[in-house]
């Protein structure tokens, strides 16, 4: 091949490549979630929930075809950072949706918001970005991490528990949840026990529990820890002598492993699969039909996130260049949340109702959390006042 021809071909190829990029005006959404290791089930719920909303709208959000790029952060901050930077620099995504875990969010936060790309968290809601460090490019569609535990404290008051045994894993989220519970609980905390993260054998803690004389135990044991704790709690015969209440311990991701042992346990949350409203009924039945399992809060929040983006893109008429307009459209939260009332606070964290939940067994033998009563309406987090937005 002659050199000139080479150049000509090269140029042709180049122009074709550039042509395709110019043509593709698809909405690009990058997702950073945990899809490996034991917590992979949580990330999978987020992917499934988001995908369901996308499929229901024929693969379009706000009238634009969507390219969804899903990345696995492997629960390693450096990997999360790498994947997030590649999403904003190489893929030039319009939105980043992530993460499951707060420490992953902390890893990807800075480069994303500094590139003026909107970051929407479908689950992690750390206090770090709710107060002083709130950011115009950051939105949370789940909750602020402390809130569920704070509501648990209110539930404990309402149930009339006077002495509560509190237990959580020894890391930031564990301590946050204990702090949240103590903030609203008016009775006596008999013990505060911190276990190692990924704790296997709770027998020592269970023995302390049974001699503590507490009416109830409050705990935060996400994932496999929760499955082990609930099984061992049941095995030790404690179910008859004390109440069990928790956050992120008996949810739709762990109940398939906990089964009957968890029935009747109390929880607090912003949603339950059987909450009776039209949007929610449609979401849960469509989700179950498509994926064969009952969605948990993670899937619900991801579904809402997709609908939020849909509403924002539609409101701006598809022009995402004007960041202020996009932000205003997101902030308006002009979509039907399956959990009912939903709006954003000044710090872009949600203002929503929180409920007391309990674990039930459905007629077909599957388990899920069930709505009992609304504990607090339009509950905002306590950091919003520190946010200057």
């Amino acid at each position: 091949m002659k050199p000139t021809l080479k150049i000509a071909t090269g140029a042709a190829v180049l122009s074709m490549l550039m042509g395709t990029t110019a043509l593709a005006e698809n909405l690009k959404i990058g997702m950073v979630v945990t899809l490996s290791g034991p917590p992979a089930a949580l990330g999978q719920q987020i992917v499934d929930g988001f995908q369901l909303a996308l499929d229901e709208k024929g693969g379009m959000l706000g009238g634009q075809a969507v390219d969804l790029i899903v990345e696995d952060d492997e629960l390693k901050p450096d990997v999360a950072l790498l994947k997030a930077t590649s999403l904003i620099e190489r893929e030039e995504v319009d939105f980043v949706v992530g993460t499951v875990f707060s420490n992953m969010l902390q890893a990807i936060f800075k480069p994303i918001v500094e590139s003026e790309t909107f970051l929407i968290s479908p689950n992690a809601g750390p206090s770090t970005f709710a107060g002083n460090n709130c950011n115009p490019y950051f939105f949370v569609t789940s909750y602020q991490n402390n809130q569920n535990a704070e509501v648990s404290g209110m539930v404990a008051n309402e149930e009339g528990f006077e002495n509560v045994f509190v237990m959580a894993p020894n890391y930031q989220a564990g301590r946050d949840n204990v702090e949240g519970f103590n903030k609203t609980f008016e009775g006596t905390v008999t013990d505060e026990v911190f276990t190692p993260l990924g704790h296997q054998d709770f027998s020592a803690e269970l023995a302390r529990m049974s001699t503590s004389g507490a009416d109830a135990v409050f705990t935060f044991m996400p994932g496999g820890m929760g499955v082990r704790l609930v099984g061992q709690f049941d095995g030790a015969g404690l179910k008859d002598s004390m109440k069990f209440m928790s956050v992120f311990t008996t949810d739709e991701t762990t109940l398939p492993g906990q089964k009957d042992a968890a029935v009747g346990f109390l929880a607090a949350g912003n949603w339950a699969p059987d909450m009776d409203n039209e949007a929610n009924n449609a979401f849960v039945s469509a989700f179950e039909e498509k994926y064969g399992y009952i969605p948990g809060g993670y899937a619900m929040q991801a579904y809402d996130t997709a609908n939020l983006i849909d509403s924002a893109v539609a409101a701006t008429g598809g022009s995402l260049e004007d960041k202020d307009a996009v932000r205003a459209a997101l902030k308006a939260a002009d979509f039907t949340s399956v959990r009912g009332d939903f709006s954003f606070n000044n710090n872009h964290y949600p203002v929503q109702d929180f409920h007391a939940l309990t674990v039930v067994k459905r007629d077909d033998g599957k388990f899920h959390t069930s709505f009992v009563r609304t504990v607090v309406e339009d509950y905002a987090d306590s950091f919003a006042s520190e946010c200057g937005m």
Partner: protein
Amino acid sequence: MSLTLFLILCLNGLQYGLLLFLIAAGLTLVFGVMGFINLAHGVQYMVGAYLIFAFTGLTGSFWLALVLSLITALLIGLLLEYVVFRHLYSRSHLDQVLATFGIIIFLNELAKVLFGPATLSIDTPELLSGSIQLTEQLRYPVYRLVTIGVGLVVAVGLFLTISYTRTGMLIRAGSTTPEMVSALGVNVKQLFQIVFGVGAMLAGFAGVIAAPIFAIEPGMGDNILIIAFVVIIIGGVGSIGGAFVAAILVGLIDTLGRSLVTEALGLVFNASMANQIGPALASMLIYILMAAILVFRPKGLLPAKGAT
């Protein structure tokens, strides 16, 4: 802390220790006899747990599933030995580490593909599902008592086999001077295979026992492998007796430490301070013990006779 609570903690420590022993026994033999670093030993524990889950689902009976799981765990161990490990005995430790680490990744991912990433559980067998009333407030699950008994029986059986049978004698001899044993006409390859298969089966058995108490999830063997290495270093590499003593020691220290350290610190510091430091210090205890052993008795508490 009441005396009953202390006794319960001791029982729990004993139970945890015996579980560790089942895993460490195979590891110490494979490491001691063959000089082979098998990181994939922990994954055999996970395999055992998934096997009992799958077979309980298929057969509906825990006991039938138990038998099937043990046989399958043995077969998987032999298969791995035949396909992978056999080719690594003469290679450097680094090669062994790399290859067996690959097996961990492969089997963890395979478990995820076959059973999904979510945490699974199986019910305690009906016969053992009750709990015994120890005092007015304290109940202790029957299943845990039974696991203590079973663990002790296996330990005694293993000790007798190693000490008094011909195979045991060959294993002991092979662990110190494999060349000499081979020169005397013993089929060392076959001996290794037996040790390997039994080791894998014991780890699988530990997984089976653990399944109803702890949850079943991909990667569940990774942490316990580290503890098992701590156990064989404390006990002395290649020594079954050492593994037993060290496993019980580690089990008791870990379990008692978690409650006692925080309480003890509570006497010195205020409660919240003790709550901050206690859990962190408690989870370090066994590593501190290991470090101390490495400094003062580098060959372990009960080193294998003639080990170099």
